[in-house]
């Protein structure tokens, strides 16, 4: 049984299909890459999974259970967590509290305040933000804010993590660190779907890649297959790919 499965997922905005009839699946422990030119519908797909939007028509199933149309908080508690393309941290709260929120509300089984604090401390260490515990989140650098979002998402103890352009806006060193972080998350046994433009990261980390274009799935396969696919190369010709591809 796939951890996450989508059948015929479609979403119209007015007359325009942002996502059109996309089937996809992810298996336990995989890192699935989601790539495509800007506007291809990648973040929309994430929104449809995390229930920020509702597919119409289409079905999304998590561990065999139909989660289409459920509220976002329920989906989080079931085990799906995400980060956002434009960082959506709680700017005026201290870093510690940003992560603590996740552990207090987002887990499948309720955590006691003490457990939540321990989880938070551990996660801050995991992402390397222990020193920044008391700083208001808005005062962090972009790279650190992204790490904070990851820690916050992990605090909800997810089985599936959706990473939306984790590496956007990061320099070479920061990208390498982020890639390392993703690998460590995978080692914890968490399944990951990541939207990325940084090809180096995608090719290095992912087991499998799905390519979207104009809301449709146009290719799917291993990094090797995708790199050699004529269709994919064509749509990326003339597109700005990020440094390091």
């Amino acid at each position: 049984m796939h951890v996450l499965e989508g059948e015929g997922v479609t979403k119209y905005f007015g007359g325009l299909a942002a996502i059109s009839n996309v089937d996809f699946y992810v298996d336990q422990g995989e890192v699935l890459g989601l790539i495509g030119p800007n506007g291809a519908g990648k973040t929309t797909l994430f929104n449809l999974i995390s229930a920020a939007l509702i597919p119409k028509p289409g079905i999304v199933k998590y561990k065999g259970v139909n989660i289409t149309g459920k509220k976002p908080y329920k989906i989080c508690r079931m085990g799906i967590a995400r980060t956002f393309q434009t960082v959506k941290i709680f700017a005026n709260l201290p870093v510690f509290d940003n992560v603590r929120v996740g552990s207090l509300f987002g887990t499948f089984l309720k955590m006691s305040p003490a457990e939540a604090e321990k989880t938070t401390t551990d996660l801050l260490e995991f992402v390397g933000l222990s020193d920044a515990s008391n700083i208001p989140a808005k005062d962090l650098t972009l790279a650190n804010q992204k790490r904070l979002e990851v820690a916050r998402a992990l605090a909800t103890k997810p089985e599936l993590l959706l990473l939306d352009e984790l590496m956007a806006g990061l320099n070479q060193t920061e990208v390498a660190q982020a890639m390392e972080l993703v690998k460590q998350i995978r080692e914890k046994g968490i399944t990951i779907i990541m939207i990325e433009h940084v090809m180096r990261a995608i090719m290095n980390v992912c087991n499998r890649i799905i390519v979207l274009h104009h809301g449709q799935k146009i290719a799917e396969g291993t990094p090797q297959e995708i790199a050699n696919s004529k269709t994919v190369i064509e749509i990326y010709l003339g597109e700005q790919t990020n440094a390091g591809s």
Partner: protein
Amino acid sequence: MSTTGLNLKKLWVPGIYVIILVFLATLPMFGSAYSIIFLISILMYVILAVSWTVFSGPTGYISLAPAAFFGVGIYTSATLGNDLPFTALIIIGGLISTALALLVGALTLRLRGIYFAIFTFGLVELIKHTLLWYEVKFTGTRGRFVVVIDNETIYYALLIVLAVLLITAFIIRRSKYGLALQSIGEYEEAASHMGINVTLVKVLVFGFSAFFMGAAGAIMATRWTYVDPYIAFYLLFSFMPVLMGILGGMGQFYGPIIGAVMVTYLEELLLTKFPYYYMLIFGVILVVAILYLPQGLAGLIEKMRRRYLGGERART
């Protein structure tokens, strides 16, 4: 670090509140009759301003309904005053206000904040019209007379309600629900994705805040010996808490308290001499505060505290 644990450094703030409350409790023994009456006004407005801030402060959802809940409390006392003891009136007034708030919240808090704001804005008029129609059609009379209660009882009743409000609000703020409220105010979409049932939290806190407004109304009803829908449901009682909350600052507990004390004092000064001018002045103060004091006086104080006492301290 942690904001739920108790440590000695954090105890001096609640300590001050306790001292002030104790002082106020003993005041009737040596204060003049006039000072009691004046303090009654202050206590009433502090309750309204603080309960308004408890919800609208952290979430950013502007409620213009305090007058509606306050009016419900007044009307409860006016209607049931002959049949029930004072304490029961206060609790029932509070509960009916809460019920109304839960209803309004369930309707509007699922949607964008603007729907909530405009629904609460018209709520006072709606209730007023409904009651007027009902009274004309069914009871044949308009308005009713209120049982008289002495000032000292009113004073202590308000003080107890305020104490309960402050204690419970404090506990909520320090609990995980306080954190949830703040997260909702910071970024509601992210909060809902982190497992917070944002609609439920908003509705419950809104209902909670309404209780105290209704209770205050039930206590204050006796101030107007004769009550009718026009008197009980008066938009000014939505304006004042908003003004006090914004002027005082919604980020800290003492913000609305400062705002309430200052504005009530000003009202006392201006009311007799310039009946219409004083409301005009308050309108101007509100606009000026929104423009130039967005964090209120409390925000200003916090800014100075950080600048002169050093160190960056995140809002806890």
